[in-house]
């Protein structure tokens, strides 16, 4: 006797609240960054120059493109083009994987130079540079976890599109996943200049 209840606006409202919590989650790390930057401006600049800007730039382009493809996927499902929706979701997931592979090579290079949290080499570089790399690894690491979660989410929703559970008049789930993906993208848009560019 249960009466079907559906509230798309409510679902989007809830998703925006959730995105807000994600912003606060990352803001803790941004506070640590701001305080450490104020304390060690010279060391932060020095440490920032050790990062490879090409990796960062490529990843920025990859993520921005993936945001475009997931936005296109929503337009596709609104027009009831299921096959196109699926293709665009898969492209988004592939781009997420490209991002992580890129990250893997970037981190491997840095770790092989002895730069990772708790290493002996870091202890020799002094407190300012240590603070920079600790925050760099933890913030980018947490962001990487979000890429994994977001990619998985889009995969699950894509499967539901294929099964016909997410359709042209019932696509809030895809929309919410896309919102999540845009947020993950947005966090990176802040991380990239803070760690690679401005110092």
């Amino acid at each position: 006797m249960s009466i079907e209840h559906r509230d798309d606006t409510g679902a989007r409202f809830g998703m925006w609240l959730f995105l807000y919590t994600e912003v606060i989650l990352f803001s803790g790390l941004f506070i640590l960054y701001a305080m450490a930057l104020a304390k060690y401006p010279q060391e932060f600049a020095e440490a920032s120059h050790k990062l490879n800007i090409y990796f960062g730039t490529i990843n920025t382009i990859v993520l921005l493109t993936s945001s475009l493809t997931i936005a296109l996927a929503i337009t596709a499902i609104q027009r009831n083009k299921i096959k196109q929706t699926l293709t665009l979701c898969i492209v988004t997931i592939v781009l997420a994987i490209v991002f992580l592979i890129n990250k893997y090579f970037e981190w491997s290079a840095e770790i092989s130079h002895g730069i990772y949290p708790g290493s002996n080499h870091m202890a020799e570089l002094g407190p300012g540079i240590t603070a920079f790399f600790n925050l760099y690894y933890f913030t980018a690491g947490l962001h990487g976890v979000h890429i994994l979660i977001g990619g998985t989410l889009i995969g699950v929703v894509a499967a539901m599109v294929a099964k016909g559970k997410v359709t042209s008049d019932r696509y809030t789930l895809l929309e919410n996943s896309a919102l999540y993906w845009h947020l993950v993208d947005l966090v990176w848009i802040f991380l990239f200049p803070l760690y690679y560019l401005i110092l």
Partner: protein
Amino acid sequence: MTKIALKNTGFYSESPRSGILGWLLSTDHKRIGIMYLFCIVTMFLVAVCLGLALRLELIAPGPTIMGPQTYNATFTVHGIIMIFLVIIPSIPAAFGNLVLPIQIGARDVSFPKLNLLSWYCYIIGAVLAVIAIFSGGGAPDTGWTFYVPFSTQTTTNVNMAVTGALMLGFSSMLTGINFVTTIHRLRAEGMGWGRLPIFIWTLYSTAWIQVLATPMLGITLILIVLERVFGAGLFDAARGGDPILYQHLFWIYSHPAVYIMILPGMGVISEIIPTFSRKPLFGYWAMAISSLAIAFAGSLVWAHHMYASGMSDFAILIFSFLTFIVAIPSAIKIFNWVSTLYKGSIQLAPPMLHALAFIFNFAIGGLGGLALGAAASDIHLHDTTFVVGHFHYTMFGGTGFAFFAALHYWLPKFTGRMYSHKPAVIAWALLFVGFNVTYMAMQAVGIQGMPRRYYDYLPEFQTLNVVATVGSWVLAVGLIMMFVNLWNGIRKGTPVGKNPWGSATLEWSIPSPPPLENFGEKDPVVTKGPYDYKGVIADEY
């Protein structure tokens, strides 16, 4: 007492699944609320036993029943369980789930599946917290605040306890998202913002704090685990970190969290006082807005926990000032409750007695808070048992008594049976006396200079410590009596009708216990305010 069968068993007999799965997989807000209630009361009793053990240890100087390490672990686990597993979810998760959708005329919350997920997050958190006590390097001994550098260096099982707290934070946050959305989207026709019961307003304010502040706890706890795993030195001054910054991050969540704990309690009291005074709540909008004001101002005062940690004098001045600001909306609430009582037709039923005790205790706790919020006196009182006494006055004397009031007020609604009143009143008296003796003695010995968190103390503090310990026994007897009486009431109490108390909010217009869909096939249309008692008649029981 002979047991009379209930004519109507409501949502207990309506479920798509039968047996235990009908509960564990249910997305019905009432079943989830009952499951929360059961778990919260269980964890409460566990933590009460730990608290009694702490008091017993302090009956005499030197090791009485435990040594220093056990004492540290006991107060840590008492704190973690009481705060994260009992007080934070006590009213919002248990009674919020039970009452919120019905009070706004909805069938359920906005996201019923997410609601069940929150409950599972709670259970996972609870299990991890309990496993942390018995595994690894022993029970955590950091205090519930997990202050660095000790929390990143101790060999006890901090990782698992912190992960448990993280899951509980997640549970609380998802509940917050659910409640804010529900209150915005699912109010019945005619249920405008001006007709929301104050309990809903306080849950709404609370839910916002849960959404805004809990992620900060999340990141803080994640950083502790990362620090323990990698040894990176995030909070180590020698390696570019800042231990004071940890305290800031921790309190940015944990101070607003005390308003997560107290606001719903204030909401419960705002329902009970008008009902048992038979008089509309005095100053409806002042009550509604002051709830939001407490939530807002309470989010800006976190550093008043850190006057002694090292901060500029100017910062201390600002945080002290903001702390005093929070007292204003709190005082508005107290004055409005008292004004509601004025010339009311007061009926001293058990929920009302607990509500009156709340006002008394919370006034003491709140004024003690000002003594701690003022920098000059805080330097003297910091880290003494006065702080512990103050905290218990607000959290136990406040939220705890509000929780007991809510139990006595709403259990008949959700079980369909009334407990007997005489033992309930005696239990209330024991609780009230035991509570005040225990914590007033604790505050007094704190002013004399007894530091908190030590298993040992100087001989001159013994008299007051004995008083506090004896008080804790009275409290324990009161608790046993209250829970036994409520349990008997649930099992074989007199069946009650729709509205045993004569209250005007929506939950009392449907059968006790409520049916699965709350209001049946047709959604209710609200035509009057929550405290409009005209024509409302209490059912005999």
